[in-house]
Each structure stands twice: as structure tokens, then as C-alpha cells.
């Protein structure tokens, strides 16, 4: 079993989705995250085991490589796709309450901004690290964030923006959330966002990479 979990982690790290997928070339024709996860479940592994000892391990490695500029968005997306293939098998088990998650994370791209790569990347990374993710999509206004935050009172909120012209909308959303519940933790990220900006708008965390967010969530959850 340990070997199988290692293989799944490897598939996630290098973006091997399933047997048919041609990438990476050195794993061509071999089983991917999809087949191996099914196999692990068939052999008696629990969803939590697979999540903790395979997916989180693989995504963690990609996250660190991304932070260190060793891989970029395309590679991370491939990893995320491999992870999703594995998660497809695990999700029903989590949904039935047969397995537990570490916490809830609500994410959306802010009002006026329709870019979703960064947001999707973060959602997948957070999900791959054992959290339930509520993805509100793109162009999300303060009201929608408020409604969702009320539904999940302990959830951490994530705001994404790609444009300098839209990142300014983060300020209103942070203000609205904090006004409603000062305890709500709000994390921000996206290409133009900086720590300086985070301080200016009183958000709780800026991270230039998903890994930083995962570490923050883990700290809050512990």
C-alpha cells in the first residue's frame, strides 16, 4: 500500500492524470492518478489515507517547487488535474461523511475580474491539502461573499484578482466581511497583489503562492 500511495503522490507531483495522458513522457502508457487511486481504494485504503499520504504529499511538493520558481502555472495545472482525477474517487466518501476534512475555504475572483487561473490553482491546492473548498467563481461581489461567510462561519475567505484595475475591489470586500464579523480571516492573492497592498486594506494574509496559504490554513486549523 505504501508503494501505491507513493506512486499516486508521484503522479500528482508530475501531472500524470491517467493512463491515456501523454504527459509526462517518461510515464507514457503507465497508470495515472486516476487508476492508481481506484486501485488503492479497492485494496482497502481509506479516503483520508489517500488524501493525507498521497495527494497532500504530491501537491505539497508541487507547491514548494512553484514557490521556488522551479515550475510554473502549466505544470501546477497538470498536477491539479491529476489530483482532481484522484479526488473524483474520494469526493463521494467525503460527502457521505465517511471521511473528514481539515476545514472550509471560500474562494472567488473579485468583482469586475473574470480571471480564474489563479483562483482555480489555489482552490485545487487547498482542496488537495485536505480542505473543503467552496468556489464562488469569478466576478464575485461583496454580498455573495457575505452570504457564503454566514453559511460557513468558521471558513477562511480567499480573494483573487489578476488586474491592477480590479484588485482595488478587494478593499470593499475585506471591509464588508470584517464589518459583519471582525473574526473572519481574509486572504488575498493574484499577480498584481503585494504585501504592501495587503497591509493597506487590512487583509489577514497575502501569499505570493498557494503553498503559503496552505501553511496559513494549517496553522489556523491546528
Amino acid at each position, binding site marked *: 500500500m505504501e508503494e501505491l500511495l507513493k506512486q499516486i503522490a508521484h503522479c500528482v507531483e508530475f501531472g500524470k492524470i491517467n493512463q491515456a495522458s*501523454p504527459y509526462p513522457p517518461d510515464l507514457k502508457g503507465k497508470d495515472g492518478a486516476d487508476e492508481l487511486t481506484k486501485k488503492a481504494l479497492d485494496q482497502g485504503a481509506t479516503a483520508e489515507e489517500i488524501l493525507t499520504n498521497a495527494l497532500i504529499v504530491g501537491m505539497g511538493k508541487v507547491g514548494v517547487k512553484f514557490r521556488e520558481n522551479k515550475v510554473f*502555472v*502549466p505544470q501546477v495545472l497538470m498536477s491539479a488535474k491529476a489530483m482532481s482525477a484522484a479526488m473524483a474517487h474520494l469526493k463521494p466518501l467525503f460527502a457521505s461523511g465517511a471521511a473528514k476534512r481539515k476545514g472550509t475555504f471560500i474562494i472567488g475572483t473579485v468583482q*469586475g475580474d*473574470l480571471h*480564474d487561473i489563479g483562483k482555480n490553482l489555489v482552490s485545487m491546492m487547498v482542496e488537495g491539502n485536505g480542505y473543503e473548498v467552496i468556489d464562488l467563481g469569478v466576478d464575485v461581489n461583496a454580498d455573495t461573499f457575505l452570504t457564503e461567510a454566514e453559511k460557513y462561519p468558521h471558513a477562511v475567505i480567499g480573494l483573487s484578482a489578476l488586474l*491592477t484595475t480590479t*484588485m482595488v475591489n478587494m478593499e470593499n470586500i475585506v471591509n464588508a466581511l470584517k464589518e459583519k464579523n471582525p473574526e473572519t480571516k481574509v486572504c488575498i492573492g493574484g*499577480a498584481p497583489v503585494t504585501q504592501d497592498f495587503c497591509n493597506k486594506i487590512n487583509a489577514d494574509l497575502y501569499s*505570493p503562492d498557494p503553498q503559503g496559504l496552505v501553511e496559513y490554513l494549517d496553522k489556523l486549523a491546528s
Partner: protein
Amino acid sequence: MDYKQTGLSLVKKAFNHETVERIPWVPFAGVHAAKLLGIGAEKYLKSPDLIFKGVSKAVELYKPDGIPVAFDLQIEAETLGCQLNWPDNSPPSVISHPLQEGVKIEDLSIPSASDGRIPVVMEAASKLREKYPDIALYGLITGPFTLALHLIGTDIFMKMFEDPDEVNKVMSFCADVGKMMADCYIGAGCDVVAMVDPMTSQIDPHSFETFVSPYATDIFAFIREKQSLSSFFVCGNAKQNIEAMCKCKPDNVSIDENIPLDYVRDVALENEISFGGNMRLTTVLLMGKPEDCQREALECMDTAGRKGFVLAPGCDLPMDTPPENLEAVTDLVHNEMLQGELRASAATITEVEKLDLSSHWSKDKVIIDIITLDSASCAPCQYMVNAVARASDPFGEKVIYKEHKITGKEGVQMMTSLGVRNLPTIVIDGNIEFISQIPPVGKLEDKIKEYLKSKK
């Protein structure tokens, strides 16, 4: 100089990676120009007259050396069938990706000059050209990778691994679209064609070289053939690709605050390419005070140096950028004296070691210190030094005067130690006596006599 110095000639010189007398300033006023007219982005970007008026207003306020006609990376995508969403306070964004919705790349054809909003920006470009022959006019085209992303959606990132041939096909098409747009802008009289490809910041150098370099190189070669200048704009942290960007042979690369300017300076100049950027858009230009903006501009200018550099915001200016912030940058760019003063006051804040001046003064002589900016173009500094020289001469050895140029460390230390804040300034025996204005020689002589009375 064999030609009149204009904004255009300064930008050309910088693009030719020459050393310039004054660093050219190119504010990327896109939808910000709509704000200057008090209208929304959509109305603005759909009207040649309004673009003409908005850019004219920006030229009037910011006295730029170069300026873009429009900053809208959705124009080409729109003609190719991408749906746009139009928020009021920013450029439109693409909300549908035809190639994801069943359209084949083979079904798409290169847009013509009369499609979509292409004639809108070209008409604005022609009018601006006519009105401002001395400003470098920038025509902005969508870079092939960003356009491919508009067409395919984010699947493009995975397709690079799963279907590289398809990605190459789309990139080749997008490069042809880019050349068509470049041709239109050149035809309308633009001096610089800037290929804006922000999405390349998201990929690794290997993917860049595989999927972007061949097409970007092709576009820049085309622009060169047309005897126009080219620039490669990228927003976001594209540090990993700067070297590869230079190898595509644009005349200039322009970057934002995510990449250290000194790094780009070194890579660009080594590749004999001009470079530009990278004033912080949001935290400084949008949210800062005019003086913060001046300091930011000065820091960029001092880091970059005068060789091959174009001062610009990192990317499209946020719509609500306060005009006074940009006007402050304009003031700074045109005022070397102000640059010197800011430099010196910044030095006061950071720890400049103050000089021990105890042995500087004399019991029987009057000591005059003149703090100046060393520059042939700083006429007041020269006149002030001359005035002091003439006033001191009759007193022979009784008066000692010295010029301290704040371009050197000693000058800055002297300025700080004497508490001088403006340039040029005359200090007599440690007292600030004349600021900025050059005193008549007679008045200076009287002052010296006063000080001499207290000497042995």
C-alpha cells in the same frame, strides 16, 4: 545635437539604448484617460473621438514623451468572436473562448482593418499622430500567447503538454493577427508597436522558448522590416523569462513592479535592448501621495540610469489614478533640481553619516559653501558659483569658498550636515544665507563684510 530634442527623439534614443540627456516618460494612460473626460471605459473605448480627446487631455496634463493610443488587449479577440464583459471602471475582459466552444482554428480568419473596433483605435491613432508629431505614439497589440489564451481559455496551459501541435497552430495564427494589427498601427503613424503579452509571466522559460519565442520573434522582425520600433510589455512576475524575451529581439522590454528593475536593466543592456518600467501602480500611483510618486519615479530613474531607459508605470494605469500624482511625476522628470533635492532629502532619512565640521570653520576666515547639483544643465548652480567667486575675489585669502556637488557622497553628506534642503544654496560660516535665488554680487559682498567683522 543634430536634431531638435523632442519626446519622440528621446524615446528613439532610449530605444536605441543610447544615453539620454533626460529620461523619457511614457505614462500608460489607458482607461485612465476616460476618467480624465469623466466617462466610463466602454463609451471611451468605442469612440475614436473620445480616445482622441482623452489622450489629448493626458498629453496636456502629463507632458509625456510617448503615450499609447489605447490600452485594450481585447480588441483582436473581440473580432475573432470572443464575448466581452464591460465593467465601467476598467478595460473589458474576455468571457468566452471560441476554440473551447467547438470553433476550429481553421475556421478563423485573420481580421481585416475594418473589423470590430480596429478602425476605432486606428482613427484615433491617425488623429493623434497629426496633432502630436513630436510625441512617440505607441500602438498596443495583443501578444500571441495572451490572444491564444483568449481563444482557447486556460486549457491552453494543459494543451501545451497534451496537444502541443494544436497550441503551435493557434500561436502561429495569433502571430499573424499581431502582424496585421502592427501593420495597421504603423500605417496610422505610430512610432512604436508594443506587443503586450502579460500571460507569458505564467509560464516557465522552457515553455516560453517552445511556444512563444518563435512567434514573438516573428512579430518583432516584421515590425523592424517596417522600420518601426518595437517593445515587449509583460505584466506580472516574468523574471524567469526576461532573458528569453530579449532574445526575441524587440527594441525594448517593459516590465512591472514584480520584477526588480536592476535585474532587467542588466539583462536588457547586456542584450543591447532598451528597457522600461516599473513604477508601482496600485500602492503608489493609485493610493500614494504626489510626493510618494515622485520618490518612486526617482528611484526607478536612479536604478535604471540614463542609458536605454524609459520611465513608465508597470502596466495600464488604474482608472482612478489621481491626476496630481502623475503630474507630480511629470514635474520631477522635467526638473533636475527637484530630483537633486529629493535625492538629498531621501539621504537625510536613510542614515547618511554627518560630517564632523569642527575643523571646517576658521577663526580668521569666512567659509562659504555652495551646495549645487552638478550638471551642465543646472544653469542656476553655475551662476551661483560664479557670483560667489566674484564676490569673494576682492577679499583674497580672507574668504574661502567651495562648491559641493550632491552627485557625490561628500556633497550629500555636506548638504545633510549643513541642514540644506534646496538647491542651489549658499551657506556662510554654517548659516544658510541664500536659497535658490542668485544674489547680486554687491549684496553678497555686503554679507561677507558682515561676517568678516566678527573675525580677528
